[in-house]
């Protein structure tokens, strides 16, 4: 029999690989699955996946209650996001620039099927760097306020980050992150936002906003997860996004994989793409063509093997009744990695010192 920690991981993976594997699952396993999906904020996504792929499957009533409740919350966040976008567009109506929706908002606007059960927390948009000041001004004139940051944080955001400090309308809850690039300026990779911006396309349904072309949409998600994120428990759902994006776009366009490969080459994003393809294939059984994984630009042996060991340990939820130290250590290592990738070492030290000084001043 599989031991419990292994079982919790496998249940969640099976559910997203092929929900039909859940047929006849004993009630106690459903319970474990819902707990794990909850830890990864994937309960609604799971419910939606089952409803779409196996409409006739017998699901215990209690489990359906959890799906319904989670979907209700997702619908609410989605409604608030759509409304916020509506208000943003009204506020910027006289500005003749392209506004590109990123991540969750883009998946909704593109009517991607998996967006239905996907939870989202804020809005990310991208505009050309030369327009960002004007956008910020127009929004602050119309009721949006910038998160209150201290001087150092504000300086840090504006000098080194790929976005300005988040803004929020004073009567509403949704935060708007306005980006001018897809990675921090200090980052070890620097894909040119102009190239991606100029290839952006109008979202479906006569929308006013643009979204990235399929390959860029995927690459943005890739970069976000494997270059910018800390790869902890909350990031598994981003891998699920990637799996869904890969599967959807490769079905829509049989040239998708080739296009993705050459775009990654062009933007020098092969390293994070390698990890995305590798983990999506190894964990979620995405049908990634084998030749993409033996690309000459894939990461070096040692970091690669280390990542292949650490990432599944870190991003998959543990059995909540059997939490271990090993997973905590893996998460810590990957946390340090993400900071290392985000900025040069000397700056990292200064930044961490500033942060810790601030922490001590508060005590």
């Amino acid at each position: 029999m599989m031991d419990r920690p292994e079982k919790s991981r496998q249940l969640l993976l099976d559910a997203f690989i092929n929900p039909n594997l859940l047929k006849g699952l004993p009630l106690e396993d459903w319970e474990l699955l819902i707990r794990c999906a909850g830890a990864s904020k994937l309960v609604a996504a799971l419910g939606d996946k089952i409803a779409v792929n196996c409409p006739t499957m017998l699901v215990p009533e209690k489990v359906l209650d959890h799906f319904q409740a989670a979907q209700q919350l997702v619908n609410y966040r989605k409604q608030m996001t759509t409304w916020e976008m509506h208000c943003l567009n009204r506020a910027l109506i006289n500005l003749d620039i392209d506004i590109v929706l990123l991540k969750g908002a883009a998946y909704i606007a593109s009517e991607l099927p998996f967006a239905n059960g996907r939870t989202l927390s804020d809005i990310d948009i991208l505009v050309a760097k030369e327009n960002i000041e004007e956008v910020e001004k127009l929004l602050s004139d119309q009721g949006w306020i910038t998160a209150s940051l201290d001087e150092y944080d504000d300086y840090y955001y504006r000098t080194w980050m790929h976005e300005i400090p988040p803004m929020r309308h004073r009567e509403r809850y949704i935060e708007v992150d306005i980006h001018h690039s897809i990675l921090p300026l200090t980052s070890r990779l620097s894909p040119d936002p102009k190239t991606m911006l100029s290839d952006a396309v109008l979202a479906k349904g006569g929308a006013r906003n643009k979204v990235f072309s399929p390959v860029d949409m995927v690459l943005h998600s890739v970069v976000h997860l494997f270059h910018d994120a800390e790869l902890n428990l909350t990031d598994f759902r981003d891998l699920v996004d990637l799996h869904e994006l890969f599967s959807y776009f490769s079905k829509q366009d049989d040239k998708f994989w080739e296009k993705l490969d050459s775009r990654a080459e062009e933007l020098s994003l092969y390293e994070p793409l390698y990890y995305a393809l590798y983990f999506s294939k190894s964990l979620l059984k995405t049908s990634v063509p084998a030749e993409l994984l033996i690309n000459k630009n894939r990461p070096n042996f040692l970091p690669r093997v280390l990542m292949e060991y650490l990432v599944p340990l870190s991003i998959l939820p543990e059995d909540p009744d059997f939490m271990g130290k090993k997973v905590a250590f893996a998460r810590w290592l990957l946390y340090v990695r993400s900071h290392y990738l985000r900025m040069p070492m000397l700056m990292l030290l200064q930044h961490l010192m500033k942060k810790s000084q601030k922490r001590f001043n508060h005590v």
Partner: protein
Amino acid sequence: MKIKDITFKQLVEHSSGSKGLCVSIGPFVVRIRTKEKSFLQTFSMLYQDFEVSEGEFVDFHIDMRRPTNVRRWVNAQIIFWVDGIAPFEPFPLDHAFPLFEWGLNWCIGRSAHQYLMLHSGVVEKYGKAIIFPALPGSGKSTLSSALGLRGWRFLSDEFGLIRANDGLLQPMPRPVPLKNTSIQVIQNFETSAVLGPVYPKTRKGTVSHLQSPTASVEQSNKLVKPAMVIFPRYQEGSETIFEELPAHYAFLKLSTNSFNYEVMGLKGFERVRDMIDSCTCLSLTYSNLDDVIDQLDKRLVNESSHDG
């Protein structure tokens, strides 16, 4: 099997084991794991009529544990854990029961969106339910408790659960946290009322929990249609005054009384609309519990004869 049907020794064994003690509380199954005997004593007394659940789907996995630092022993504290998360600061160990109740409210409030959740007391008689939506301090807990003590079915003192799909009321007759002067009011009102320990200096002042009527707990699975929505307000020395409320005003009051009206979107709107359409909506000012109960009874009898 009810909590009171197992010995305290068995209860301790269950709840300190890895499988924990599973209890049906309204529509939810809660797994409790703890080694704290004083907490279990209070719990087993106030939840004595609730069913021990076996082999059912557990909704909330709660651990009540002491911290691992010095506060384990010195001025001992207790922490509420749910699925490996501790959402609150530690409480003093002797306030473990109010912490559990508060924590369970938190679990339900943030996740049970298969219900429109009202901040309301709910009672039932003659198959007709009355919802008492009100802010804390309006006396709705006292009023619902008093009705429960006079043989009405008690469904909840502050969690009116309206099932999103069909608008039926789901009972959750948990112990009622009586606050400050209400403790004495209920003790004077009914000398046989069973109350738990008195907890001074909680966030809400002094609190003591009232055991729910056995028959009400036994009917936890019996859902009922709402018949009246009454907004109560206790006012010292006042006569019992009922006033009819305009529908749109009742709508506004009822929707803002809900914890999750906005989350429920169109479903929330439809459930509130249906209640306004099908229920008698009144405001109530009162001071004398016996008199209110008498008049509510008459009104329900009248309602029934209208349906006749």
